[in-house]
């Protein structure tokens, strides 16, 4: 009951930045409570990852290792985390609001009979009762809710950028090997194959040119691509993004989607073409340094959050702009 656990997320065996943020959050909260924070690494071979986590000043690193934890099989992972919680009885369990976290946290909370708050942007301890105070945007970011829940462990998933990343410390954490009791019968969903697709990483773009509901036909995205090519010569990494309706129409894959359920990005410039500015889109791009909107509707919300606006038809403006930039 006197420990905060932090679930480690990794990508290709490397520690994810969001985990370093979570470690910072866990360490800070542990400091407030006068208890310790430890990390949890899950997989079939966790030695290298555990070693890199061990240099961030946590009390312990739990290596939860089992052959069934290879890759990410949610049934096995949930089983292992449930087992770990029963073994260690943590007071707080911090999980990233990542692909893995979103999947395991609700199921884990259900099994532990506690209430989960997802996608928190802020966490603190209520000095009166020691419970976690959970800050979470709702209605796409139109309101900020602060909630508290009874029960132990206190489980939350945490949005990226909620804490500054932890720096490496001098001392090494104690690494504890844990072998969860898992068996094949727990696995109800079978993975047949994983198909890798070319995935754009919009958070690596210097400029994102995004189209929305106002784009009349799929082929019109070629105009956005032409602008991307024209800008690419001088503006670094220029990528194409979109708002949700475009993915719903199957015109673009979801890796291009910007917003609450897509990428949350902060490029040097964001060019919104035919995007009216529904709030769940805005939360994904509002941290852009400069925002430029092109839209036929002068009253639309996108203009209210933009630095520059052009009221007009993208079909006229984009080709003219490309021509100008290429001169």
């Amino acid at each position: 009951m006197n420990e905060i656990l932090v679930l480690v997320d990794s990508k290709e065996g490397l520690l994810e930045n969001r985990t370093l943020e979570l470690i910072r959050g866990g360490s800070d909260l542990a400091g407030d409570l006068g208890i310790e924070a430890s990390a949890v690494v899950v997989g079939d071979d966790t030695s290298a990852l555990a070693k890199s986590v061990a240099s961030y000043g946590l009390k312990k690193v739990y290596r939860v290792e089992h052959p069934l934890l290879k890759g990410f099989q949610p049934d096995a992972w949930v089983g292992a985390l449930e087992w770990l919680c029963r073994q260690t009885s943590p007071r707080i369990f911090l999980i990233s609001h990542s692909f893995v976290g979103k999947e395991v946290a609700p199921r884990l909370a259900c099994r532990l009979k506690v209430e989960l708050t997802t996608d928190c942007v802020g966490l603190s301890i209520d000095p009166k009762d020691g419970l976690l105070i959970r800050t979470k945007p709702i209605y796409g970011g139109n309101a900020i809710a602060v909630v508290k829940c009874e029960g132990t462990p206190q489980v939350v998933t945490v949005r990226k950028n909620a804490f500054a990343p932890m720096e490496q410390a001098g001392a090494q954490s104690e690494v504890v090997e844990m072998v969860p009791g898992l068996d094949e019968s727990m696995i109800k969903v079978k993975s047949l194959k994983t198909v890798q697709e070319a995935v754009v990483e919009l958070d690596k773009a210097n400029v994102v040119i995004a189209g929305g509901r106002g784009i009349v036909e799929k082929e019109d995205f070629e105009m956005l691509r032409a602008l991307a090519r024209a800008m690419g010569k001088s503006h670094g990494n220029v990528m194409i993004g979109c708002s949700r309706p475009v993915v719903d129409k199957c015109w673009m894959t979801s890796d291009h989607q910007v917003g609450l359920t897509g990428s949350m990005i902060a490029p040097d410039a964001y060019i919104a073409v035919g995007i009216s500015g529904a709030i769940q889109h805005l939360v994904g791009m509002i941290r852009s340094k400069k925002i430029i909107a092109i839209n036929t509707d002068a009253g639309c919300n996108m203009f209210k959050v933009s630095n520059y606006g052009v009221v007009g038809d993208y079909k006229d403006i984009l080709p003219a702009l490309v021509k100008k930039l290429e001169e």
Partner: protein
Amino acid sequence: MKEPKIVVCAKQIPDPEAPFSNVSVDVEKKEVLVDAPDVISPYDENALEAAIRIKEEMGGKITVLSMGRKVSDTVLRKTIAAGADSLILVEDGGFERLESGSVARVLCQAIKKIGEYDLILTGRQAGDWDSGQVGLILGELLGIPCISLARSVKVKDGGVVVEKTVPVGYEVVEAGLPAVVTVSNEVGELRYVARTKMLGLLRRPMVIPKWGMKELGLEAGDLRKVNLVELSPPADMRRECVFIEGASPEDMAVKLATVFRELR
């Protein structure tokens, strides 16, 4: 195989596409006020579309289950117009502000009351609190497989085969029935429902069962409410927008090109 019985859990929420200027926060009452009509949560519409495609391919029955403190059948009748067979409203004053686990508990009771089901589909998350928990917890409570983030759902040989969106692309997974699948927007938007069809359906008398706590054998003590300590408006996102004007698109392009060059 026999024709599948599909349950789609669909939540009614204020239109999440509403402009932010139509949304305000009552700090005293801790309520979000949205000046927009209620709609079916977008991902739940995607789930319904996935269900209708299965029905088109192999037959079956689709029951839409919608739960809330107060549910409007006029909003939900759209699901029938699109292709669902029946609608059940799960409604009770006691269902207000339930936390996700308790919402799943209520739906679980309702699904057990329906009795026969092969596949339960719902959106990956609802467009109001965006918690993304109910579907996954429902699978736990019913003790059946749960697959999340589907971009395609097919019923095959007594099981369900799902293409699930994963960070590197997609994963093809399989589970036995019954199962819960949470659906993502890559499935595609809900088919268009003609206004005339919708209006005709609104006039047609229809038996829509309403189940509350009593019908589901639940008591207030079985459910947890969200303990909302505080609700506040977000930080102001507004910027001072400089509108680029010109007599022609070319005129505007010249000025815009200058802006673009300064971005570097």
